[in-house]
């Protein structure tokens, strides 16, 4: 099943919705999406993981590689609606302590507004 990524802009926020499996091939598309210089104009990147069924190490690598860059530019990267098994992968790797993973969109927004 190929990955589908949709981008939505709300105010100062970019919302990426991931649909499908984030494996070695689809992570290239994600990398392109996150490397877009346009994204640096916003203060928030929210990632909707509701339909993200699987994430491979290559997919994690893409987020990790952009993590530092976003932090330096003071852009907040927030994941929400994450499925348990995907969250487990983040947790095992220890990424849950580095990245912000919240339960839903409202929570993500409230964090953003802090």
């Amino acid at each position, binding site marked *: 099943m190929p990955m589908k990524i949709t981008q939505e802009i709300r105010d100062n926020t970019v919302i990426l919705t991931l649909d499908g499996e984030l494996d070695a091939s689809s992570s290239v598309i994600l990398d392109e999406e996150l490397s877009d210089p346009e994204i640096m104009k916003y203060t928030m990147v929210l990632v909707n993981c509701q339909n993200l069924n699987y994430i491979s190490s290559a997919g994690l*690598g*893409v987020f*990790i*590689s952009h*993590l*530092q860059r976003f932090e330096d530019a003071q852009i907040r990267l927030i994941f929400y609606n994450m499925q348990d*098994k995907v969250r487990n992968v983040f947790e*095992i790797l*220890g*990424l849950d302590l580095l990245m912000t993973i919240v339960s839903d969109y409202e929570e993500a927004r409230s964090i953003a507004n802090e």
Partner: protein
Amino acid sequence: MLKAGRETSYSAVANQKTDTRFMLYKNNAKTLLATTTVVSWLLLLVYVLLTAESKQAGSNAPGFAYPFISNLLIVIFIVSVFLFQRLHTEMLKGVDFIGYLWNLFSKAGVAAYLSVALYLVYRVYINYIDEQYTLLLHVVYQINFGLLVLFLAKAFYIWRQLLLHHKNKFLQIAWDWFELLLGGILLLTLFNFKYTSYVFLPLLALMGFYILFLCTNLKWVAYLTFSNKSRSLVLLGAILLSCYIFIRFFYNMADNEQLTVDYTDVGFLLLAMLFVGLYTLAAFLVSLFSLPTSSVFEQKSEDLLNFQRLSLSIQQGQSEAQVYDMLVDSTIKASDASAAWFEVIRNSDPQVTHLLNITEAQVKSIRHLLQAYNIHNMDYINNNLGRNPGFRGLGLPWKSMAILPIKSTKHLSGVLYLLKDVEGGFDHETVNVLRTFTSQTTLTIENLRLISESLQNERYKEELKIATQVQESLNPKTFPTDSWFEISTHSVAAKEVGGDFYDFLQLSESRIAIIIGDVSGKGISAAFHMAQMKGIFHGLMQQDMAPSEFMKQANSALSRCLERTSFITSSLYIIDYRMKGFMFARAGHCHTLYYNSMMDDVFYFKTDGLGLGILRDDKAYAGHIREMYYDYNPGDVMVIYTDGIVEARNLQNEEYGEDRLLYMLKQTYHLEADDIKYAIINDVNDFTGPDNVYDDQTLLVIKFRPTQQNI
């Protein structure tokens, strides 16, 4: 086997024998026929001279006139000459039609000129001595008769050879009947029938039609090239002239009162001459009228030949450049183009490799124009360039142009440009032929590329095989066997090389360090990082440090050499058998599964720990790594693995999962380490189905033994 071999060799010998016997028979027959020919002709001459002598002596002494004898001798002579030629021409083979014609002319056609020369000499001589010399006339007449029969026989059988070229069964039968009928007519002569009598006239007429039918079989003419046709016209004309000379000579002589024999009475000769003459005439006319079209056929057959050369070029191992040479050559010939150039496209940059009657500057100006119209590198035919103002502006002499790209579905390898100085130069027919050439070239080029690619792939495969072997040798095959613990390992890579690894290092007599890890990604890049990590493990652990300290230093080292998107997960265990405990740190690696025999419980050590190479700041990373110490009991089992095990999927896309792994250990902890490992691996394979490994899988099972054995 041996027997069969011997049998075939016997039959081969037998064949050879019959062959030589046949050859011998043929040679004997030819000698016999030649002798018969000479003897019968001499006898005929003697007979004729005797008859003439007796006629001269006085008409009242007709004692020496036996027409039967002369007819018999004539028939014998004719039959032996024809049979001789029949045997002789059978040896001629092949499709060298000009050779046949030359053979016919040089060996038989000249006979007519000889005969005419002979007769002229006779006439001059007669005039000179000014006296009738009948006997000499007889001799000349007889010699000419011999030459005529020779000519007819030779021509008859050479025409047979050509007439039956590409024969079918019907034609062969028709010919055989023709020969039989002619033979029958020869018999009429024997019995001195007058063929001109009314009874035989219809038969003769029928034979005439039969001959006309046979004369329509001229397939061989089509195979002559233009120059061959012109040469054959000369030869055929000369042969026709021979026929004419003979006919004239014998019809003139027929009225000569002095002669005793009139060969125009021999119906066979008439028919044979009719056949030879008509067939020669037909061949002459057909050659003459097909002369203007022969260049078309030549072109077609050359196209065909070039086409064949193009398709054969792969087998002959030719290079792309040679194929393009052939293409340019063939298409210029096929279209009769007055100018042409060919560009090879390398990295979407055209390079002109072939130029014909056009300069680089002209090519450049035309290409600029085409680019302006956006029709470069496209299949494009323009038969009226003069109507285009842009092209007219260039002031070039050409009036039609064809652009033919060498293009497969995804790759443009070259473009061919053909120019002609006439309008409408590239008609439908020509363009079709040109397209056939270009599509064949495309196919050939594509195939050449595929072949070289497959060779390259073969080399890569060999390299990968070596990489697989190297990597396999990196994983330790044997752990130190000791009485206090047993260990069993399993490791498979999803591809030729993988990113999973495990290793150990004996730190001291009672302490051993065991590491397991997984590099993000798969394949070659993962394999490189895995080897790097092993180097870091051996380098750092020489200094004997705590697991958490190792992880910090490893993270620092990897941060400097790992690309941003890569990371490594790892767990390091230092087992101290004297203290009966182990220390470990987890850097983002899968949780360790553990069976505690004292509590009879199976659980995961759920500790925190960040993967290596994610946080590249040493101080920041230090806060993300935990160390844990655990006392083990004899009978405890530790299961260490990579995510390839728990994330193994079945056909329904479900993951194997930590719970099922935990359940497996619950069922098997009482077994030996090896058996626990096999049980888990079998269960994973049952779950995924056969040959369904998508990620590298590594599994280590460590079982602690009761210590009393050691004491």
